[in-house]
């Protein structure tokens, strides 16, 4: 552990993903959103409009960085250039934290630009833990890893997904970004109980929630992030708040992006759920 800061990260409240279609709206209206999450990769470019708006919006809101290309589970060497771009971006916007996904995105130098699931084996666990430690040492801070949606599981897996995620977090001493929608999607696709997942992740390591929409094809669900959040995912979010307490929460909408007020309304719905669950918990505690 070289320079890693190991500080208590703040509770940020309720945020949204920063998307180019909303840049002007945000600057003109300064909506009452607690924070924004950026897709780091959208800003690892030399210049242009995205970086200009990023700097302007950062002046008014806390931000966190969320990457899609770390490929922490790949057997390819870690991409030092990519890591240095992430570090440079972090130096530029001073994010509250940096996250990516517990997955791999390609091997042999190729990038499939997808969040591909890992086999949950001892070998993969050891491999990922070593790489998370390398990344954390390089960035000088703990990172958050997010559970991905998946459509396959492997014959060779020795752990459940939640056991694997928890083991990575404990052994590499990293934090968890729990995507509530991804748990719902994977639970549907692999026939497990999403509550079992929620209840078996180390509470003290969960730093952030993602909530999103998806597309249900009947036989399986695809994590498209292009639809409003469905009732079942709101319900699962309520269960997550009941179990984990106050956790920074954001809506991740990546496609078919609606006008800002529509996402804002969804965020208010999440806020109301969290408030209700927290109040109920308080009442029970008082009784």
């Amino acid at each position: 552990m070289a320079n890693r800061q190991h500080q208590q990260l703040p509770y940020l409240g309720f945020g949204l993903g920063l998307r180019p279609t909303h840049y002007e709206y945000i600057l003109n209206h300064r909506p009452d959103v607690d924070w924004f999450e950026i897709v780091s990769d959208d800003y690892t470019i030399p210049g242009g409009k995205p970086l200009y708006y990023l700097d302007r919006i950062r002046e008014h809101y806390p931000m966190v960085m969320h990457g899609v290309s770390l490929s922490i589970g790949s057997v390819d060497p870690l991409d030092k250039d990519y890591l240095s771009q992430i570090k440079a971006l972090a130096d530029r916007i001073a994010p509250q934290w940096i996250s990516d996904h517990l997955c791999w995105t390609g091997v042999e130098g190729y990038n499939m630009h997808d969040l591909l699931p890992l086999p949950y084996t001892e070998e993969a666990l050891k491999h990922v833990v070593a790489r998370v430690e390398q990344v954390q040492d390089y960035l000088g801070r703990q990172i958050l890893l997010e559970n991905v949606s998946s459509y396959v599981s492997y014959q060779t897996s020795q752990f459940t997904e939640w056991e694997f995620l928890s083991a990575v977090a404990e052994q590499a001493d990293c934090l968890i970004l729990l995507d509530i929608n991804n748990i719902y999607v994977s639970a549907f696709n692999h026939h497990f109980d999403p509550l079992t997942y929620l209840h078996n992740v180390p509470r003290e390591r969960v730093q952030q929630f993602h909530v999103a929409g998806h597309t249900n094809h009947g036989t399986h669900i695809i994590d498209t992030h292009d639809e409003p959040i469905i009732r079942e995912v709101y319900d699962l979010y309520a269960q997550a708040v009941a179990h984990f307490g106050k956790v920074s929460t954001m809506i991740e909408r990546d496609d078919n992006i609606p006008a800002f007020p529509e996402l804002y309304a969804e965020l208010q719905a999440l806020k109301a759920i969290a408030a209700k669950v927290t109040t109920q918990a308080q009442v029970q505690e008082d009784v």
Partner: protein
Amino acid sequence: MTDLATLQQSFQHYLRHQDGAGILTEIVNDAALSAQQRLAVYHEGYYLRLIEILENDFVVLARLLGEESFSQMARAYIHDFPSQYRNIQYVGCRLSEFLARSPVYHEHSLWRELATFEWALEEARIGEQATSVSIAQLAELAPDAWGELSFVLHPTLKVLRLHHNAVEYYQASYAEQAWPELLTHTELQACIVWRKQFAAHYRYVNSAEAWMLGVVLAGERFAQICAGLCDFMPEEEVAPYALGRLQQWFADGLITRLCLAE
């Protein structure tokens, strides 16, 4: 038991080629969805995701080819030139090269030039940041310093040399007009592409201006540039021409620094 490296290679091979030889038996099958169906979600997702990116980066080429032909061409590109980029925004950077090298597509030189042109616009949009200087800085210089003057141009500037009227196809598409008749120029036409503020700009340049830009990029000083322009025009026309081009470059935001000899 398959090791992690072999499993990832087999999975990636399936994504690219839909060949399940190494991976199919590794995937859990169930009554709701077979291993093949599950893998197909990833295979289709891989191509569809990247085709969508290419449609957004090559809007006019996609319109010219039509949805089905573009999708077929894009699929072949993704297959033959798998992305080696961390950032998905660069996935289209070799499309023009693919179109030049593919036995199926190399005869379609207009498509290739349109791809080159649209990619140059895309690169300009996300290219390196630089602040343009105003023509007022030039006016501040003593006249005898001009000969030793050199210029730093905007880092996004690119000079394209086009065989066809790809630029007119681009303009027709955005003006929602009929496609123009395909023209093949007797001499290559130079077209410059760069970013001003946040927008990509382009315009044709004649052979003298294209030459000027080339030598300015190579760091030549103003006196040498003027001497070289004598090959393009009578000597008495050189000074007004060079000044006129400089004024245009300042207006275009192409000049980011004036450099004087030490």
